[in-house]
């Protein structure tokens, strides 16, 4: 499933995403602690978070995440959007909670894709 398909299926709001919406999503990671996301997210994951500030973009770039989904009706800060455009990191938002976004992604089979990918040794 691509970022664009996830956006459509979950009715996400596109905050920035002129590019890279066709990237294949390998799974997801939920976290609001940046070091945790740095350590445990996988390339191609969507990152579900409440964080909205500019530093989330660098994490997504360094971990090659497919997109950031900001939950609970929060919106990215202005500098975050600017940086996202510079670095070409799609940012989407939702009024849903992290639990509901993750649940729906699993229902769509995104969690299964990750489980399959993880059988391949790193």
């Amino acid at each position, binding site marked *: 499933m691509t970022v664009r398909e996830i956006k459509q299926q979950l009715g996400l709001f596109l905050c920035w995403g002129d590019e890279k919406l066709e990237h294949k999503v390998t799974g997801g990671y939920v976290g609001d*602690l940046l070091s945790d996301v740095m350590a445990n997210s996988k390339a191609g994951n969507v990152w579900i978070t409440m964080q909205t500030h500019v530093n989330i973009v660098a994490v997504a770039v*360094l971990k090659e995440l497919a997109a950031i989904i900001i939950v609970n009706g929060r919106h990215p800060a202005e500098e975050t959007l600017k940086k996202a455009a510079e670095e070409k990191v799609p940012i989407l938002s939702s009024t849903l909670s992290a639990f509901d976004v993750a649940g729906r992604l699993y229902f769509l089979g995104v969690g299964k894709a990750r489980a399959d990918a993880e059988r391949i040794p790193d």
Partner: protein
Amino acid sequence: MSASFSRSFTIEGRDFLNAGRASTQIKTILKELSVDPAIIRRVAIASYEAEMNVVMYATRAKLKFTMSASAINLEIDDEGPGIPDITLAMQEGYSTATSQMRELGFGAGMGLPNMKKNSDEFVIESAVSKGTRLTMTIYIN
């Protein structure tokens, strides 16, 4: 590649807006040099965590990135408060991050342990009121 490749970056304390820039540039260089993605991931984690600690706790630092045929080396030398108890600072979960930093998602106390986990050689030296120096080496083969 025979000769080693080297680049230096300056990191400013409290500069949250540019935080992560050095690590992002290093990652770009490694990709251009077609380094194994698994190695790039480890270097990215180690350098990002070191960079963020400078932004959060120190005044400024020089980050020197060196790559030879056999290893990647990161040396982060900061001017800052230093670390009074390195054993404590190395413990997972230990953090002196302010509540403001924690709200931004920093302060899990995972940065130093993550750096150590992702490097093959990890050396931390610190002098209180002077600064901290980290030397991390990641083997390529």
